[in-house]
């Protein structure tokens, strides 16, 4: 058999705990609020639903190549990784601690559809708190990395949180957007967005598209050790910049130019062609290395 296929440990498939275990230095992880010290969300119980001890998020401290790291991982299998009161507070708490203790980085392993509707108000406010806490952490000089490659991607409020991070590392399987295709289909019709056309969904929201457009810093193979290597490499070269008008001005210009250039398009294929990709239809089937090479060769 093909050995590289046998030994892969898919990030997409792994649970939150397995992702952390594979990402950090072996044995270095200490969980904060472990399951045995936690109780499931009483809000879910009120709605007659069993909760999870960790409320769908694992937080704690560990090391990445011997550097001290704070880490949080959402569990996409539990109610779509959605943010409820406890879930959100754990993440806010971790980020607040990061401001004080200044680890080398905070890694957010996002796998979430956004706000947990069963506790929608608490979830929405919590996401707002997470947004501010991410920016406070970065302002304290601690980089915050978003790692996206789980089955739920990063949608809704967590899509916004991801874009507030220092950088996003994403796999081809990862998705990053605001509204889910199903929501758009329900409201605007199947002609607007056919959520069952998965190739289309990925051409609009998927990791390759986001990477080609520069919304994500790195495209990573769907493999736990590839994410580990990518995070290590990124942090080695990264100095968290102080927040400044200059930086945001530059982003503003870039976003405005992008909107003018591509605002009318409705499919990744059109944008890739406009970006200068000679054979856009081939993009979805390119492997990770070829796609990275393709991006490097694009006219800027």
């Amino acid at each position: 058999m093909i050995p590289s296929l046998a030994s892969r440990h898919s990030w997409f498939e792994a649970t939150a705990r397995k992702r952390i275990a594979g990402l950090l230095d072996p044995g270095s992880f200490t969980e904060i609020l472990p399951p045995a010290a936690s109780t499931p969300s009483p809000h879910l119980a009120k709605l007659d639903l069993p909760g999870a001890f960790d409320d769908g998020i694992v937080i704690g401290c560990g090391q990445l190549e011997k550097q001290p790291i704070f880490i949080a991982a959402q569990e996409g299998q539990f109610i779509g990784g959605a943010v409820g009161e406890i879930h959100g507070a754990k993440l806010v708490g971790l980020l607040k601690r990061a401001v004080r203790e200044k680890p080398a980085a905070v890694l957010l392993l996002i796998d979430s559809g956004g706000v947990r509707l069963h506790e929608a108000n608490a979830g929405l406010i919590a996401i707002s708190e997470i947004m501010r806490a991410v920016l406070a952490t970065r302002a304290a000089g601690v980089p915050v990395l978003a790692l996206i490659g789980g089955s739920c991607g990063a949608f809704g409020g967590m899509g916004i949180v991801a874009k507030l991070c220092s950088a996003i590392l994403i796999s081809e399987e990862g998705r990053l957007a605001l509204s889910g295709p199903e929501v758009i289909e329900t409201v605007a019709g199947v002609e607007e967005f056919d959520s069952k056309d998965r190739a289309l969904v990925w051409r609009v929201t998927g990791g390759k598209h986001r990477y080609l457009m520069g919304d994500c810093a790195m495209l990573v193979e769907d493999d736990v050790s590839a994410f580990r290597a990518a995070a290590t490499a990124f942090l080695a070269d990264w100095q968290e910049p102080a927040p400044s008008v200059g930086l945001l001005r530059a982003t503003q210009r870039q976003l405005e130019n992008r909107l003018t250039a591509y605002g009318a398009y409705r499919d990744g294929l059109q944008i890739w062609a406009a970006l200068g990709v000679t054979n856009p239809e081939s993009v979805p089937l390119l492997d990770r290395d070829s796609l990275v090479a393709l991006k490097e060769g694009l006219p800027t």
Partner: protein
Amino acid sequence: MEKLNFQFESVPALPAADPALCGVVGSGNLEILLNAGDAPNLCVVEIKTAARGFADTWQAVIGAFAAAHPAGGTRIAINDMGATPAVVSLRLAQALAEYQGGVQ
């Protein structure tokens, strides 16, 4: 949701320092948290399950587990989203093995 409580006599498990967690609360799956219990010959179980009306099945599945494995002196907490008995049995075996550091 239904809450169920059982206890079964069982041969004492190897006492362990750390609790063990297996599985994820997701469709057709469950999480099992295995803690040290008080009575060395008892396996005490608390279940919260999304599927109502299967108390007899739970009792049979966990009873069979407690009879076949040394599970005494443990407290087992389960959050379930409709796992089948096959999955429950598998997770119980995994959790106990992890709790005892790989010994079954």
